[in-house]
């Protein structure tokens, strides 16, 4: 795990989210899904957002990548990434900004890959959309990306169904790295995978991050996994960010009752040796 060196003056955060609000329009009116959420994310940092289904964690991620479509509306706040006012981006500027500055890895790799195209064709699409036109360069860069995530480059000509679940997610991560973005949003990237594959994949992401220096916004419901992978953890409840801090602080001294409830919901693997795992629940 990389710890940001603190002996130099603190640089501006890479990502700054201020009072973000997202509403879903329905027949009965607006339903607030994200309510005045604020946080920052530094360069080279891994920030985790944890919460249960419906807590708004994915809605935050989608808002940062500007992926929302009606009936979801960003109704307030600001998002700044490396000096760019993200919520003001439009048209071609937005299209070019996506993937070049921010890429997204979602839970289901099979839904993110086109089953009718070879991996090579999908890399070609990606590069062409972002101005890389030379066939030889595209081939070379695709092969390099595959090598980076531990897949033999000769598999570029295979279709997605020829890969296992873990390898498909590696392909998606390779695509997410293609344009060297500053931030990769990972929304439950390993939830559909087995624990061993999950650990293998995230160990590799950890190594890649040290080498390439990108930041990650990591979204999961698995608090234990998050404590292993992230530099800081935020807890979402009913659209609000209720608590945020480094893993150790969140484990040993959680302030919010809901954070304590989430920890207590995880049965410890080694009960006697790890006393902090069972945090005392105080009366509300």
């Amino acid at each position, binding site marked *: *795990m990389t710890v940001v060196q603190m002996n130099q003056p603190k640089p501006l955060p890479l990502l700054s989210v201020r009072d973000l609000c997202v509403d879903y329009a329905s027949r009965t009116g607006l339903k607030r899904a994200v309510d005045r959420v604020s946080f920052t994310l530094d360069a080279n940092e891994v920030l985790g957002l944890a919460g*249960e*289904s419906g807590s708004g964690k994915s809605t935050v991620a989608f808002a940062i990548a500007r992926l929302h479509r009606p009936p979801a509306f960003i109704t307030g706040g600001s998002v700044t990434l490396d000096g760019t006012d993200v919520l003001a981006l439009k048209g071609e500027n937005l299209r070019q900004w996506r993937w070049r500055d921010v890429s997204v890895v979602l839970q289901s790799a099979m839904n993110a890959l086109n089953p009718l195209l070879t991996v090579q064709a999908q890399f070609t699409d990606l590069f062409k959309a972002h101005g890389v036109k030379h066939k030889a360069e595209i081939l070379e860069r695709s092969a390099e990306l595959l090598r980076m995530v531990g897949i033999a480059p000769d598999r570029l000509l295979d279709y997605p169904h020829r890969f296992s*679940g873990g390898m498909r997610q590696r392909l998606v991560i390779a695509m997410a790295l293609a344009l060297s973005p500053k931030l990769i949003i990972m929304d439950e990237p390993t939830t559909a995978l*087995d*624990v*061993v*594959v*999950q*650990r*293998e994949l*995230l*160990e590799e992401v*950890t*190594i890649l991050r*040290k080498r390439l220096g990108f930041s990650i916004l990591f979204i999961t*419901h*698995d*608090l*234990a*996994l998050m*404590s*292993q*992978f992230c530099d800081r953890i935020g807890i979402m409840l009913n659209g609000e960010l209720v608590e945020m801090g480094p*893993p150790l602080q969140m*484990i040993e001294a959680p302030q919010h009752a809901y954070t304590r*409830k*989430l920890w*207590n*919901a*995880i*049965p*410890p*693997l*080694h*009960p006697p040796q*790890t006393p*902090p*795992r069972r945090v005392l629940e105080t009366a509300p």
Partner: protein
Amino acid sequence: MSPSLTSPILETRKLGMVFRGHRDVAALTDVSFQLYRGRALALVGESGSGKSTCAKILTRMMLSTGGQILFNGKDVTRPGDRREVLAYRAQVQMVFQDPFAALNPAHSVRHHLSRPLALHKPNLGYGEREDLTAELSLMVGLDPAETLDKYPHELSGGQRQRVNLARAMAVDPAVLIADEPTSMLDVSIRLNILDMFKPLKRDRGIAMLYITHDIATARYVAEETAVIYGGRIVEIGPTATIIDAPRHPYTRLLLAAVPEIGRPFGSADAGLVREADRVRAISREPGRLAEVAPGHLVRECSASFA
């Protein structure tokens, strides 16, 4: 109660399952375990390991292609006539992974609980059936007055899984098979569902097969644990021993990979994870299951890992 003092309710002996196709797939090979009254066995494995195939065979949704199943000592590997199949099904009930798909959206909770009673206990009068339905609802922590007339879409995931458990318990089974009963539920309510199994074991003497990919919950639910990989049990024994002193490389790999506080990524204990492919390869070998301590069996394999 030591298992050796009593005989198992349900037992498999060298159970095998081969799916025939243009390429045969051996989903289960040489799977032997025992389920005892008032105790739970956790079957821990990853997707494709064969754990759900095992559940399907034990609940008669599928017929095995090898080995034996014994129920109270009687060979029930091949189904008998309809009466025998019904009697077996009343004794061996199942709770499924998906609490949404397991309930009929067109029927009320009352229907889901009273229907098995009508089928398996036809002698009950209407009033008795109503009383039992209310009792089942209370047993799983649902207020009958509030819940029985609701439809599945009006319930939360946790409530639905409670209804599924009540439905399984309606026919008074001796064996409960729970296939990933909490993996589709929100984290904060998972333990509440698992907590409901404890009184069933203690007070009703239910023998349980708890199927999961999450070895940490195995410790919470089950006295014994079997780790299954590639259709073979690679290690079986008391849950605490399996977790605290694992012997088989695959069990150790699984434990090294389980998310746990205090073991950050990029640290030394990822060692075995880096050799995952090698561990997987040797874990597919058909070695002999050797008893390394009373009740603790480990499949022999050709390599060892530091």
